[in-house]
């Protein structure tokens, strides 16, 4: 049962060839959602861990904002909201990795990727649909409960306007898109690198630090702050948080996120084409 | 099979005095008396509800295996084969009954027993993936505390008979499935186990590798007297290796005896595939019947207990024969036949 679900990869394509591509990708997204929904115990365990980390971080942030109220333009309850949003979005945005990229790298390493590239469905779109399904599950399954616990234990800034919440959801969706496009690039790098583990670890490092998981990006000092706030990782957690907290203009934020998404997706296209040529030249 | 039960009193009496080593008069090496294994299985029935159900994976099994026997242990998937092996090796604790291997209660003295048994899990290699084969053997040497001279002797022997000489310095990940299986078997034998458990030792191997593995096991059994218990899906493994076969299904021992007996019990048939020069009407011979015709090729079923030789001779004499082959019934077919016959008998008895 479990292995069957795990194999829900490009192999399932053969059967779906006749279905319209929109419906196909919808089905793939549902598959991605379900695949993660199977692991109930793991989800509960993750919720617990996110909650514990939330409590620890929230306590240190409380002390930090006690020292310096309005640090980075946040007041204390803004900062605490930021902590709990970070825990809620951590797995949705795959900040610590372990999304589809491990599987894709494995397929590249074993050469199975050649089969995927000759299939009628587009590689980038296929994994995008799958990953968005996963993101949706983790947003609901792993995000809501820690955030609710945080709101119960601490004094959080929760906007009253439904429009703000709606804008927040849009920012989360765009963040998930940026997260995917970047990880797709990383995975494709395995075509040219002998060992995918190294680059995955490097991007994991960069992701944890530059996404604002350890410290909100607006607290970073000087030029370092300017730089990290312009990088794509700022679109993952900082951007949705700023939209929810009313700290940034939603339209500008969307433009920033969408800009990175388009750029990274285009780069992914380019790399995918290069990879396809390489596979064709080498004969798979 | 009749003797040991009468002696169970004496045996348990002896055990209570000396659990560490004991022998029955028939030199039974493996002894099971009414061994059971019951699992609690939780089945999800709704979103948060689940149902608990008892599953008897092994249901009151009794048998004896003498030292030096080579026994096939077969049955469909989920029949209880691997559960039995896990109890014999001490991995699982039986829920009931009495079990002894070399006089030792496996579940209570697992590590002590480990030095005296060898286990090969067909699809799970215990060799070190990224290291040369020889490194895995060196680890066995130290972990089992095998005396140097004996280790060298056993290694040389395995290397020679399993043709591993060229593979010793090759990382395990570069070995083929057949090479790896040979490597695994050698690893399980370096410490001179008195019994070797093999779980699907020929699964996925090519014909030559299968033959090599079988030949090695036969030698091991005859020359060193190692007791061998193997589970398999390949009826040829059993035919070529085992004088005795046990069939388990739904946790119960359905049959225990020689393979020929199993054929009789199951009354199974082998198939002779005949390629003729041209299309002909179905072949007519007394000891076989045609079950399928496809152009010049014909399939004839004949009783598995009979030799194919007279049949082949007769067809060759009377028909323009180009090629032929004999196909064995697989284990599933034998067992299915066995059930069908039993059901028929039961039906007859009822009426």
């Amino acid at each position, binding site marked *: 049962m479990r292995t069957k679900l795990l194999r829900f990869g490009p192999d399932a394509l053969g059967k779906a060839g006749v279905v319209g591509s929109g419906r196909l990708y919808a089905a793939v997204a549902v598959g991605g959602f379900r695949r993660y929904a199977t*692991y109930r115990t*793991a989800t*509960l365990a*993750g919720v*617990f*861990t996110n909650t*514990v*980390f939330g*409590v*620890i*971080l929230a*306590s*240190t942030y409380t*002390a*930090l904002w*006690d*020292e310096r109220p309005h*640090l980075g333009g946040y007041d204390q309850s803004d900062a605490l909201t930021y902590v709990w949003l970070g825990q809620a979005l951590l797995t949705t945005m795959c900040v610590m990795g372990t999304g589809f990229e491990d599987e894709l790298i494995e397929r590249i390493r074993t050469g199975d990727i050649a089969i995927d590239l000759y299939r009628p469905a587009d590689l980038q779109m296929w994994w995008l649909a799958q990953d968005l399904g996963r993101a949706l599950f983790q947003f609901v399954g792993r995000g809501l409960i820690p955030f609710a616990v945080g709101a119960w234990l601490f004094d959080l800034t929760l906007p009253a306007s439904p429009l703000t919440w709606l804008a927040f959801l849009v920012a989360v969706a765009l963040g998930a898109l940026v997260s995917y496009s970047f990880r797709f690039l990383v995975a494709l790098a395995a075509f040219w690198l002998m*060992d995918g*583990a*190294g680059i995955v*670890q490097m991007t*994991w*490092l960069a992701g*944890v*630090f530059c996404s604002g998981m*350890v*410290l909100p990006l607006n*607290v970073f*000092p000087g030029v370092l702050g300017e730089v990290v706030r312009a990088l794509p990782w700022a679109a993952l957690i900082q951007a949705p948080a700023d939209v929810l907290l009313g700290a940034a203009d939603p339209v500008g934020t969307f433009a920033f996120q969408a800009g990175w998404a388009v750029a990274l997706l285009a780069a992914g296209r380019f790399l995918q084409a290069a990879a396809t040529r390489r596979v064709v030249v080498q004969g798979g | 099979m009749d003797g040991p039960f009468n002696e169970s009193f004496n045996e348990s009496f*002896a055990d209570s*005095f*000396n659990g*560490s*080593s004991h*022998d029955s008069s028939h*030199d039974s*090496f493996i002894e099971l008396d009414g061994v059971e294994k019951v699992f*609690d299985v939780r089945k999800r029935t709704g979103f948060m509800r689940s149902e608990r159900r008892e599953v008897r*994976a092994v249901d009151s099994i009794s048998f004896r295996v003498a*030292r030096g026997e080579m026994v096939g242990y077969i049955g469909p998937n989920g029949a209880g084969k691997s*559960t039995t092996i*896990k109890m014999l*090796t*001490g991995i*699982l*604790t039986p829920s009931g009954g009495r079990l002894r291997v*070399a006089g030792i209660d496996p*579940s209570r003295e697992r*590590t*002590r027993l480990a030095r005296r048994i060898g286990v090969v*899990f067909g699809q*799970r290699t215990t060799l070190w993936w990224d*290291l040369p084969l020889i490194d895995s053997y060196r*680890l066995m040497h130290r*972990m089992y505390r095998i005396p140097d001279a004996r280790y060298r002797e056993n290694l040389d022997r395995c290397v020679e008979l399993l043709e591993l000489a060229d593979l010793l310095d090759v*990382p395990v990940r570069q070995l083929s499935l057949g090479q790896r299986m040979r490597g695994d078997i050698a690893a399980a034998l370096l410490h*001179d186990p*008195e019994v070797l458990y093999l779980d699907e030792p020929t699964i996925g191997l090519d014909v030559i590798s299968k033959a090599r593995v079988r030949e090695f096991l036969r030698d091991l059994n005859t020359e060193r*007297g190692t007791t061998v218990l193997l589970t398999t899906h390949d009826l040829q493994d059993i035919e070529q290796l085992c004088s005795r076969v046990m069939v388990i299904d739904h946790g119960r021992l359905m049959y225990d005896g020689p393979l020929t007996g199993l054929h009789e019990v199951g009354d199974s048939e082998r198939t002779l595939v005949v390629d003729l020069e041209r299309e002909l009407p179905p072949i007519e011979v007394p000891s076989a019947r045609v079950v399928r015709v496809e152009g010049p090729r014909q399939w004839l079923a004949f009783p598995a207990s009979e030799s194919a030789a007279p049949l082949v001779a007769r067809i060759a004499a009377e028909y323009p024969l180009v090629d032929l082959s004999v196909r064995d019934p697989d284990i599933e077919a034998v067992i299915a036949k066995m059930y069908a016959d039993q059901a028929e008998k039961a039906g007859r008895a009822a009426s």
Partner: protein
Amino acid sequence: MGVSGAVGTGVRTGSRAHDDRDGWGAWDDGPLGRWERVLDGVRAYRMIAGMWIRSTMAYRVSFVMTTIGNLTATGLDFLAIVLMFSRIDRLGGYSLPEIAFLYGLSAISFGTADLVVGSMDRLGRRVRDGTLDTLLVRPAPVLAQVAADRFALRRLGRITQGLAVLGYALLTLDDVHWTILKVLLVPVTVISGGAIFCAVFVGGAAFQFVARDASEVQNAFTYGGATLLQYPPGLFARDLVRGVTFVLPLAFVNWLPALYVLGRPYPLDLPEWVAFLPPLVAAGCCALAGLAWRAGLRSYRSTGS
């Protein structure tokens, strides 16, 4: 009876009968047997860890990269605290060197446990894919075999970084009146703390026998605990501090002895001598973790996969 067993194995093994009695006698339960078992576990651990080191060296470039990665990852962790202090002078009343002292002790203890038994969080996976069974048919304690699984020298990165931060703290702490007792307390704390974290890892693995997919729960106590201990106890809710003092005694890893060294008040009005309890607490934790492990393994062997 002993002779008949040896005779039964045939001429070939007859000569082994003598070693057998000696070798196996050691496995009989009893105080001596238990001690032998511990030694045997350590021996098996060394052998398996050695094999893993050799395996990693088959991919040298990868090893170098992941080691650097590990060092950088833990380095960034402390960098975040340094960044905080670029905006503030004190956090919860503690200076940067004082926090570095807490951080260094926590990182070294946790890093040691992570190096020694860190792979135990993979136990659930081993149970799921059935590879645990291959360890159960070996003549070595399963705990040692599981603990040595995937032994990785790259985990020295965290210990190295912890030592560097502790070194920085010791050089920059200026208000501490060092006594011999305080100097001795530092290494004792590190070792006991490592043992307490080891116990947490083993306990977490034991829990995975029951809940196979729950490996992430243990991250809350290992990684979460290590993060918690980097900051002064005053930052956290009283109930949380109570919990990590009396229920899961992480407070003894570094908080209490470090507060004694720094001359800071204890949380929860604890008496001063609790700073010297870590070795005792560590022994207790290890004993409990051992019992939990045995119970977990027993439950696995009766329920199977």
